[in-house]
């Protein structure tokens, strides 16, 4: 009994929007990263679901790559957040405003 693909679209859209909300509202850099993860995983949901619909495996392969890439991104990101913490004594992204206008 297959779930209709439309629901998957809705789910992934919802997850994407939640992630987007997190990016816009939260000031903690780590939470920002988490929200990005949510957004990428929303894409993953879509890909997997429609890989099934179309019957080819391209979507699932891409999902594997995306997962790995997201992890790499987080790794780099945490490194930068560490440097941020060392220089600005906080991980609030709104604290680093020496360059403006």
């Amino acid at each position: 009994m297959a779930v209709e693909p439309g629901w998957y679209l809705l789910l992934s859209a919802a997850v994407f929007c939640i992630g987007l909300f997190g990016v816009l509202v939260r000031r903690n850099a780590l939470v920002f990263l988490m929200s990005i993860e949510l957004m990428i995983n929303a894409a993953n949901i879509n890909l997997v679901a429609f890989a099934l619909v179309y019957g080819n495996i391209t979507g699932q392969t891409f999902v594997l790559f995306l997962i790995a890439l997201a992890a790499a991104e987080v790794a780099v990101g945490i490194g930068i957040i560490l440097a941020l913490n060392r220089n600005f004594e906080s991980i609030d992204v709104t604290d680093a405003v020496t360059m403006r206008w």
Partner: protein
Amino acid sequence: MLGTHPLASSISIPIVPGIGGAEVTALFPLVTFVLILAFGRYLPFKGAFPGIVATGLGFLVALATVVEIAGGAGPRHETLHTLVAGVSGEGVTLTFGVLIDPLSALMLTIVGLISLLVHLFSLGYMNAEGEIDLPRYYAALSLFTFSMMAFVLSDNLLMSFVFFELVGLCSYLLIGFWYREPGPASAAKKAFLVTRFGDYFFLIGVVAVLGTFGTAQFASYAPGVEASFVEIATDALEHGETGEMRTFLGLGERAWITAIGLLVLGGAVGKSAQFPLHTWLPDAMEGPTPVSALIHAATMVAAGVFLIARMYGFYALSPTALAVIALVGGFTAFFAATMALVKQELKQVLAYSTISQYGYMMLALGGGGYVAAVFHLTTHAIFKALLFLGAGAVIIAMHHEENMWEMGGLKDEMRTTYLTFLAGSLALAGIFPFAGFWSKDEVLFETLVHALGGGAPVLFVAYALGLLAVILTAFYTFRMVLLTFHGDPRTDTAEDPHSITLSMKVPLVVLGVLSVVAGVLNMGVFKGFLPENALFLERWLDGATMGEQFRESSLTAEHYHHVLTHDFGAGYSSGYAGLGEGNLALVGGVVALVLALIPAAVAWRLYGGAEPDPHMMNLGRIRTVLMNNYYQDEYQVWLARGFTLPIATLANKFDQGIIDGLVDGSGGVSLFAGGRFRQIQTGVATTYAALLVLGLLILIAVFAVTGGWI
């Protein structure tokens, strides 16, 4: 291809170039100009010698040209240099070229002769008096000769304009020769500016000609010139072939031709010192007298008249333009003569006399007398130059005193000067058989005849003014002669005048002889009693000596007459008041003679005694007005200061305020916008994210709607 007489080739003079090389008349003085400018200090007589050689050679070449044309050599029309080559069918072609026909050959000779004599005279006037800066003087004289010759040789209106302006520049340089004094400097500026004002209209006229006809050529003999603008205009009115010309402002062909004629007239009015642009000529007397003789009597002021004569086929198409010219001329003749009556300085009388006589020439042109105008131009050049040179001799003799009331009794000490001056005066006054009599009568005759023939009433008015001016001319001329030369000497200098050199006497004698005999050229008064070919000038201007092609072309006096008298042209007809042509001419001559002799006698009575009184003082208020030149000078200064200057200030404010303001404003607005945009970059990362998402959402919204995703 040119209409050459079969004997033409045998007439050309082997050593001196003639019609084929007439441009050397202009080029010789140009070379001397450069030479004197570079080496003037080292040359003999500080540059007079090269000047004399150049003008002498130029005069000989001009004479050779005249001889060749008399022998039948055809008109020469050649394009010497193309400035701007128009693409075929589109755009005009601008060229420099030469047009040598009887009219220009005659003018070349006049300019050459007068220029040569003035150069000679200057040896005595300037060099012998120990003047400084003489290389500048002779250089300017050479430049002037070059410009004037080139002007006469011009084959198209644009080239005429260029040299018209150049001549004006030389006038400025020469009037202001003694620039260290305030008077000459100011007079030079005034001369330049007043003539420039007229030249502005001339320039618009040139552009109008180019725009209307696509060509500014006076004639069409040269290969590559399809038609002159005169011919196109004539075709349009005569045959109704209006395809070739474009009119503007919604005017018809004749009206537009009139408009162009009036525009070009602006330049002529300025250059020939007609009312209202006459105010510069009396002030120009601040320059050295030989300059006055050359430029302000015989040649430069003749340029305006020559220009109209050159284009006469065009003017003959428009009765309105002709009427305006006649009225301006007649009025100026009278108006200037009134002012000459009361002047006390010798050169001032002559200056106003020049203005008045050029009024006669304009009157002739407007009245339909092309030959008369050219004739008067020729004779006037001779006798006015003579009078000015004579005045120069007197001034030198009187140690630069110019007021006639300080002179007197010079006829005994300065016999040559006196006799030649008298000859010139008799010619000016129009006494038989001196040259002026014949030419002035021709002018009046032609005007009267065309007025009687049912022409515009304006011609009657103009004729009347011309006739009145005869009376005044005779009076002031004899007053001048009597005050200067007769009676007892009124000052010590007059008793013992400085002697003048031979170099000054020779030109006076030459011109004196000419002013006696020059009338022979066209003894129109006797035309009822002379054989057909005796009117030499008329035949000359008809191209009677030249080939058929010229005779049937549009540059002859006969063609002008044809255009003038037909309806497609000015529609003049001739009326003789029932007397017949010959008789009317004779009667007119007698009337004019009487009108000249009577005031001469009156002048003799008033000023002929040993100690004449200043009778002009009796005129009281009238005299004051005349002495102040009807306040024309003040009026023109007011026009400049009270009228033009405020407008200029307004324009300047507009330029600085609005135009500069716009430019500065756009800079200010940009910087302001930049400042505002800058504030978008707040520095907070989440703001960036928010703005990014906002942008994306807007794009989605826009394209969802337009792309039909909803």
